[in-house]
């Protein structure tokens, strides 16, 4: 058993507005992944669609990357830059 990761979770744009918050500090169970945190936070849709991306410590990451204490986890709605 690992120790409980303390995470900073960020939402942006449409995701932020749908959820009604921008940033949360969170204790996640050992072995937590972005997918698990998404469900833990009750974010919608329940199964996030492929257009939503994940960043860990400001780098793109996958939904099943292992999270560590102190990580900054961000959920990113579809990008529209330029």
């Amino acid at each position, binding site marked *: 058993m690992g120790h409980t990761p303390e995470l900073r979770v960020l939402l942006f*744009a*449409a995701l932020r507005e749908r959820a009604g918050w921008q940033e949360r500090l969170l204790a996640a169970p050992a072995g937590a992944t972005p997918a698990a945190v998404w469900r833990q936070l009750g974010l919608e849709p329940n199964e996030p669609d492929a257009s939503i991306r994940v960043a860990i410590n400001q780098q793109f990451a996958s939904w099943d990357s292992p999270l560590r204490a102190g990580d900054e986890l*961000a959920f990113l709605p579809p990008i*529209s*830059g330029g």
Partner: protein
Amino acid sequence: MAAPLLAIQLEPGPFQPLLAMEQWQAQVQERMGHLPAAESSFVGRVRPHTGAGEPLAALELEHYPGMTEAQLHHLAAEAANRRAVAAVLVRHRVGRVRPGEPIVLVAVAADRRGPAQRCCQELLEALKHEAPFWKREWRADGSGLWLAGNTPL
């Protein structure tokens, strides 16, 4: 070959692409002692209407402070190294942008026109899809709509 000069900057307010290019050219000139033979650039401006064809009051550009800048650097370095170019300039607006105002400027200097043109195009596509920016269209009635993608080529 020396590492390419990367000049990347977010712009919180209106900016002038030609002025930005002038400053960048001065930097390139100072660094290299001359301006390379080929320079390709692109400026994107806000359209006066929404994707649905209604009048647009403004476009809001949200970003992820820290990650957006880092990702722009990463994308610019990648595009520059793939094409062996000498210098890259990127300016990208954040915040509220009015119709007609520039959103994005990409310029690339290289010894040949092919690499300059291709790098400029590839970097533009990369930042449209891989740099964390989000656009919201604001209409005159005060309603806003987050966009879920980019204008097609």
